């Protein structure tokens, strides 16, 4: 591609995405559909802005899927998997197996050979992780039975893609494109090689990556980390491709291996934007390759296939929900949410096409069917909410009770030095789940050696906080000593996630006022309470009663904080340092004067002298 051509094409893609996605989001259709529509509009069947080289673009964009699987792997924290093993294997496994079998059975009636039918069954059994998770999240259903069950099924499907990618070439009817066409090894040898490579990735991930990442982290150059993360993913993908295995499998394994690493959130944050862009590109190119001519020519068969697909899925999901004891309301939500084809179908179709597993005359209409069934998802949700749920009765919304469950209510703690450790230990000792980010690689190692789960990362970056799960966190504790960083972070978090409460550590009085001004919900001056505590001891030694000293210290704190909050409001009018300093002096004087008053007041109040 010539440079001008490349830029022009990038411009078309970006323009389409920038216009279509916000419209789709407005209509409640989700970004995946937005991209598909954008692709359809610029594709050869509508405006025709992009043409012949769409296959080339798609091939490049498939790398986004490889990255997506790396990120899926990163999310698969083994303990979480273990906790959900029953619904994942039971519901997820049965869903994939039963749906594949049912669709394959139906497909076998129309297709000439059984291999094609099996492939079609597998591919169509998957649902759309991207659309479903996004929708359930938006509707606040993720924490319910229905959401958790849907998540389990989607997780199994995501994992099932890996063996499917491995099985597909075995189902090729023609001679070309067999499993290991580069080496032509017999079956057992290639199986051994797969095993060897996977073990190799695990070992390298376990033993080498940590020290490598530490060295990179110590350079303190952000782009080095970006480069390393990309290097890792691209490297594994190339390695796998070279030995004739699926790159997605390799990066997925690498992701799982690194899921426990302290650099996990940092890696996620680095790979995420690339994944997002490439996936967008992928969906756009899928949209562009949808054959609308086909739809126009034979609308009825296409619609029948869409209806059939959704119906088969609905029935099987409904039975599974019953089988696993979901209430009828939860089951309705679960069933209707998962009854579409998924984005992985596009991946598997394009893979199947590249490997000559499926002929184009099967892939083309089915791509159209999957895309249409995805487009139906918002409609299915509406049908469920307006027609099905009202008939089921029961409470309007199976909302989980309000009492704080210990596993729920997530806190993110930034900075795990002397200050942050105390906050973190207190939270953890009382059963709260916390995610800790620390930017000093050596400190991370030290604390990890004591068994604390700490991740490496520079928290002033909103993308890293996103990776750490700020979107569904209750609390963010900022316990680093870089004041400017904290101010930036507070402003960003308050802008993107206004419901998250922020606690911030302040060096002194002025910093405290600035943090409050920036939007921190609560601040603690790092030396204030200990100094106050010492003052209280001093009072006791000078002859105060213990309780009297306690009251005096509390009173001092109360007055001081009141004036501090007043000071933070003055900041808003004038941020100039000199004014600020003047205000400071005036305020301090006010505190001292009010202390005098307060002392006599306290002495005369309450508890007469019996």
């Amino acid at each position, binding site marked *: 591609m010539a440079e001008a051509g490349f830029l022009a094409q990038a411009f078309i893609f970006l323009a389409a995405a920038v216009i279509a996605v916000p419209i789709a989001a407005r209509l409640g259709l989700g970004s995946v559909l937005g991209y598909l529509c954008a692709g359809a509009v610029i594709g050869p069947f509508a405006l025709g802005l992009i043409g012949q080289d769409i296959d080339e673009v798609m091939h490049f964009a498939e790398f986004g899927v490889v990255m997506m699987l790396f990120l899926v792997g990163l999310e698969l924290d083994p303990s979480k998997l273990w906790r959900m093993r029953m619904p994942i294997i039971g519901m997820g496994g049965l869903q994939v197996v039963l749906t594949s079998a049912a669709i394959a059975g139906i497909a076998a009636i129309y297709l000439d050979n059984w291999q094609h039918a099996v492939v079609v069954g597998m591919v169509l059994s998957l649902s759309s992780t991207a659309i479903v998770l996004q929708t359930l999240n938006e509707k606040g259903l993720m924490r319910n039975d229905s959401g958790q069950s849907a998540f389990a099924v989607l997780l199994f499907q995501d994992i099932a893609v890996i063996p499917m990618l491995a099985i597909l070439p075995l189902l090729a009817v023609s001679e070309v494109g067999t499993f290991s066409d580069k080496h032509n090894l017999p079956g057992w040898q290639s199986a051994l090689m797969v095993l060897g490579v996977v073990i190799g990735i695990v070992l390298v991930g376990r033993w080498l990556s940590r020290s490598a990442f530490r060295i990179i982290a110590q350079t303190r150059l952000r782009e080095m980390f970006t480069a390393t993360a990309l290097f890792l993913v691209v490297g594994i993908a190339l390695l796998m491709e070279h030995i004739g295995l699926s790159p997605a499998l390799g990066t997925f394994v690498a992701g799982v291996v690194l899921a426990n690493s302290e650099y996990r959130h940092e890696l996620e944050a680095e790979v995420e934007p690339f994944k997002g862009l490439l996936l967008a590109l992928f969906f756009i190119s899928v949209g562009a390759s949808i054959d609308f001519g086909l739809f126009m020519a034979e609308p009825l068969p296409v619609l029948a296939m869409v209806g059939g697909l959704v119906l088969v899925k609905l029935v099987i999901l409904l039975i599974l929900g019953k089988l696993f004891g979901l209430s009828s309301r939860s089951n309705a939500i679960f069933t209707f949410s998962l009854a579409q084809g998924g984005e992985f179908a596009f991946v598997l179709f394009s893979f199947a096409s590249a490997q000559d597993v499926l002929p184009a005359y099967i892939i083309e209409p089915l791509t159209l069917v999957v895309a249409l069934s995805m487009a139906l998802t918002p409609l299915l949700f509406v049908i469920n909410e307006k027609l099905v749920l009202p008939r089921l009765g029961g409470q309007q919304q199976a909302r989980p009770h309000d009492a704080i469950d210990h596993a729920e209510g997530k806190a993110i703690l930034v900075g795990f030095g002397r200050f942050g450790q105390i906050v973190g230990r207190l939270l953890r000792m009382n059963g709260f789940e916390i995610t800790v980010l620390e930017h000093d690689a050596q400190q991370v190692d030290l604390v990890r050696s004591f068994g604390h789960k700490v991740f490496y990362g520079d928290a002033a970056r909103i993308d890293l906080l996103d990776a750490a799960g700020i979107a569904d966190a209750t609390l963010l504790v900022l316990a680093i000593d870089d004041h400017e960083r904290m101010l930036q972070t507070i402003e960003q978090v308050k802008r993107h996630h206004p419901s998250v409460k922020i606690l911030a550590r302040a060096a002194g009085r002025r910093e405290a006022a600035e943090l409050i001004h920036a939007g921190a919900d609560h601040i603690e001056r790092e030396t204030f309470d200990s100094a106050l505590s010492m003052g209280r001891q001093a009072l006791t030694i000078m002859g105060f009663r213990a309780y009297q000293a306690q009251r005096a210290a509390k009173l001092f704190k109360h007055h001081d904080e009141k004036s501090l909050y007043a000071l933070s409001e003055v900041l808003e009018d004038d941020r100039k340092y000199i004014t600020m300093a003047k205000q400071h002096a005036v305020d301090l004087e006010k505190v001292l004067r009010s202390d005098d008053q307060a002392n006599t007041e306290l002495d005369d109040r309450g508890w007469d*002298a*019996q």
Partner: protein
Amino acid sequence: MTKALVIYAHPAHQRSRANRMMLDSIKGISDVTVHDLYQTYPDFFIDVEAEQALLLEHDLIVIQHPVYWYNMPALLREWQDLVLEYGFAYGRDQQKLKGKGLWIVMTAGAPEHTYATEGVNERPLSDYFLQYERMANVCALKAFPNFEIYHSRHMTDDVLERAVATYRQNLLSYLEECRHG
């Protein structure tokens, strides 16, 4: 060895008159332990085990406090909730303080005549502290008659001195009574 434990709760001891004199009067008696709650737990964080052990070591439990709002001070109330818990102070066959003596000592700011049906406080002081009767009963304690000092801020020094002497005398004689069962 028979011993008395004075559980003392006064949030502003530094400004007290009657209570300070009373405590001074029993200072140095070897069988009497004075336990100052507000001095020990200014943050209201009560060490329950230590408190219970202390109670078990003594035979006569004296609860001494000023009356505020017809009630005991907040920390003593907290102490009651936490220390006199089920399975220790009460419960079937679990009255570990059973048979110990209980003596309530209270100071009130108002004169005695106000604590009567026709007075401004409308009832005798003991009416407001019926709960101590229950406490003795529930914990199987042997209650001695309450000791009350009225008008504690404004009474003359010699009246107060006589009251304090009675207080000391009563403490010693109750202790003696506990000694002989």
